[in-house]
C-alpha cells in the first residue's frame, strides 16, 4: 500500500483528516456544511523501518499489552516519538506526540478491514492528543441535542443508534464519540460514517436509513462492515446519556435515572490506556464530571427478547419527554 491515490480530506471525531490512500467510507465524510475544525491530522502509509526510526522501542514505555481473541494489541509510548499501536491482525500505526500525524503500516488486508482499527483506535487517540475526550459510545442527534448510548461490548449501542436513526434521528457516530466541554455544554463531534452490524440486525433495519442504503464494504467475524449514507456533520451538545444493559430477570423494558456510581459508567467508557500524563488525567476527570453534572444519565434495562428497535423506541420516547 502506498500514498498514490488522489488526496482527500474528511472530518471525523472533531478532526480534519487528510490522506492519500483509499479509505472507503471514511474519506466520504466530506461536507461543505461542516464547520472547519482547527485540529488537523495527516494520514500516511509508512514502512515499518520508518516507524522504528520514529519510535525506538528500547526507550518506549508500554502503556497497554493485551491478548484478545488470539491477537496481541499493545501500545508503546515515548516522550518525543509519540505512540505506536501494534495489533497482530491489523498492523502497526504510529501517532505523533501531539496527534497531528499518523503513519500506517497495515497488514495485507482489504482496506476496510484494517481501517476498522484505524477508525476505532488510532483516530480516537489522535483526537485525544488534540484535546478531545473519546468515549466508547454511539450517538444520534434529535432536535439539535445528542443522545449518547453507552454500555458494555455487545449491549447493543450500535444497533440501538441505527434504529434511532431509522426512526428519524441523525446518526452522529458509532462506537466512538469524541466529546469536549464548550462553555456550559458538553458537545459530541460526528465520527466516521462507518458501522458494523450482523446480517439479522441489518435485515431488521431494512438495510437502509432515511438518508439512503447502508453500503456493505465486507464481512468479518459474523459482522458486516457498512458505510453509512448520511451522518450529521456538525457537533451537538449532549442532551442525555443512556447506559444499555441486558438483565435476565427483567420482565419489561425500563428507562430509569442512573442510580449509583456515575464514575464507573463514564470513566469506564474512556480510552484510559492512553491517559498517562497528569494533565490529561485531570482533563479526563473534568470532562466526565462536567458530563455527569450537565446531562441526565439514564439506565436502560432490557429483558431477554427485547430488540434494539424496542430499546431505540424507549430512548426516543424518554428523550422527547414521554413516559
Amino acid at each position, binding site marked *: 500500500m502506498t500514498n498514490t491515490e488522489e488526496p482527500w480530506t474528511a472530518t471525523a471525531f472533531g478532526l480534519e483528516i487528510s490522506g492519500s490512500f483509499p479509505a472507503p467510507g471514511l474519506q466520504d465524510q466530506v461536507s461543505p456544511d461542516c464547520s472547519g475544525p482547527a485540529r488537523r491530522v495527516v494520514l500516511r502509509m509508512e514502512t515499518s523501518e520508518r516507524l522504528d526510526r520514529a519510535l525506538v522501542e528500547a526507550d518506549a514505555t508500554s502503556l497497554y499489552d493485551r491478548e484478545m481473541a488470539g491477537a496481541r494489541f499493545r501500545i508503546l509510548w515515548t516522550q518525543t516519538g509519540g505512540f505506536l499501536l501494534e495489533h497482530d491482525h491489523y498492523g502497526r500505526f504510529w501517532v505523533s506526540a501531539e496527534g497531528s500525524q499518523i503513519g500506517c503500516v497495515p497488514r495485507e488486508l482489504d482496506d476496510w478491514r484494517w481501517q476498522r482499527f484505524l477508525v476505532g483506535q488510532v483516530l480516537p487517540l489522535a483526537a485525544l492528543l488534540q484535546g478531545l475526550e473519546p468515549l466508547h459510545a454511539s450517538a444520534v442527534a434529535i432536535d439539535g441535542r445528542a443522545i449518547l448510548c453507552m454500555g458494555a461490548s455487545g449491549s447493543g449501542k450500535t444497533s440501538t443508534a441505527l434504529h434511532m436513526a431509522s426512526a428519524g434521528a441523525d446518526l452522529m457516530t458509532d462506537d466512538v464519540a469524541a466529546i469536549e466541554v464548550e462553555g456550559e455544554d458538553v458537545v459530541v463531534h460526528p465520527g466516521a460514517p462507518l458501522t458494523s452490524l450482523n446480517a439479522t440486525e441489518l435485515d431488521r433495519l431494512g438495510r437502509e436509513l432515511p438518508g439512503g442504503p447502508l453500503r456493505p464494504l465486507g464481512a468479518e467475524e459474523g459482522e458486516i462492515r457498512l458505510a453509512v449514507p448520511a451522518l450529521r456533520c456538525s457537533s451537538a451538545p449532549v442532551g442525555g446519556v443512556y447506559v444499555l444493559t441486558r438483565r435476565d430477570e427483567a420482565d419489561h423494558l425500563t428507562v430509569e435515572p442512573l442510580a449509583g*456510581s*456515575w*464514575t*464507573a459508567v463514564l*470513566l469506564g467508557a474512556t480510552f*484510559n490506556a492512553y*491517559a*498517562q500524563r*497528569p494533565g490529561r*488525567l*485531570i482533563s479526563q*476527570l*473534568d470532562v466526565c*464530571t462536567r458530563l*455527569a*453534572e450537565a446531562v441526565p444519565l439514564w439506565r436502560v434495562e432490557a429483558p431477554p427478547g427485547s430488540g434494539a428497535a424496542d430499546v431505540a423506541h424507549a430512548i426516543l420516547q424518554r428523550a422527547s419527554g414521554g413516559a
Partner: protein
Amino acid sequence: MRLPSHVAHRRLADETVLLNLESGMYHGLDGVGSDFLQALEAHKTVDAAAAALAHTYGVTGERVRGDMLKFCEGMKQRGLLVLDDDEH
C-alpha cells in the same frame, strides 16, 4: 491529614472521585466518605473534622471519630492520604 499532591478529586452530589496521578487509578467515595474527606480538608485533624461532622450528623464525636480513623487508614493504605508529622 491531607491529600498528597499527586491526588486530585472531584465531588458531584453524593460521590467523590479521587484520581491518583502517579498510578492513573481512580477511586470512588460514597456520600459518607465524601463528607469525611471534605471535613478533613476543612479542619485538617481527625478530632476537629469528627467534631464538626458529629454536629451535622447529630451523633457523638467519638462515634464519628472511630469511623473516620478507619476511613483514614484505608485511604492511607491506598496512597490517597498522608499523615502530617505533627499530627497523631
